[in-house]
């Protein structure tokens, strides 16, 4: 089901654009750099959203074990996310979104292995890579 452009009532402030994303798989990027994948079920005028089948995708870019950077999914079920924490919300093709634009170079690992990799990784290097998404540090600069 897709709504034709312009069919949204104009009196809904702040959230007119999100109607077209309902029931679609989305990727949310939050202020603390977390990436959440899931199906958008509901939203309100403050951009608070309800995501079903939500999972947090964690990345490790400085993986020394293999050459590939790895990721893992932490299943969460249904989540309500507060609007002020949202940076970008983008529609994806499907919930797996394996490639995420890296041309298939990302390798999925189970959570336990991911945590093991994270323990061995150089914190400074990983923070440098991960820091680019962390909005909240902007306030301290």
């Amino acid at each position, binding site marked *: 089901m897709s709504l034709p452009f312009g069919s949204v009532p104009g009196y809904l402030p702040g959230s007119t654009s999100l109607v077209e994303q309902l029931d679609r798989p989305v990727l949310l990027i939050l202020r603390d750099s977390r*990436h959440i994948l899931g199906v958008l079920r509901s939203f309100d005028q403050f951009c608070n959203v309800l995501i079903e089948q939500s999972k947090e995708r964690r990345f490790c870019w400085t993986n020394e074990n293999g050459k590939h950077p790895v990721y893992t999914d932490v299943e969460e079920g249904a989540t309500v996310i507060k609007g002020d924490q949202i940076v*970008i919300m983008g529609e994806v093709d499907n919930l797996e979104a394996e490639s995420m634009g890296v041309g298939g170079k990302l390798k999925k690992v189970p959570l336990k292995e991911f945590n093991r990799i994270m323990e061995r990784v150089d914190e400074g290097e990983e923070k440098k890579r991960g820091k680019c998404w962390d909005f909240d540090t902007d306030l301290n600069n």
Partner: protein
Amino acid sequence: MLFFSFFKTLIGKTVAVELKNDVILTGTLHSCDQYLNLKLSSVTVVNGDKYPQLGCLKNAFVRGSVVRYVQIPSGEVNTELLEDATRKENAPKKREVAK
């Protein structure tokens, strides 16, 4: 409301949105709202190799509060119209005289 109307005139044009964390997104402006939240279609990240996670997005909704700049093609802006609208918006309002 002025910039909301201004962005509405730019719907369909290509813009570059720079966020407060220095990520720059390029895309076609699809829609906007009174909070200046923006929706971009055919979105690409300018420094794509540094932020590869966004390569799979078809479109992106960007919350207004995280935008630092919106770069627009200079040919699309009618500066006279914009200046007139600014003057009207900031003109002192006439006070009603009670009888």
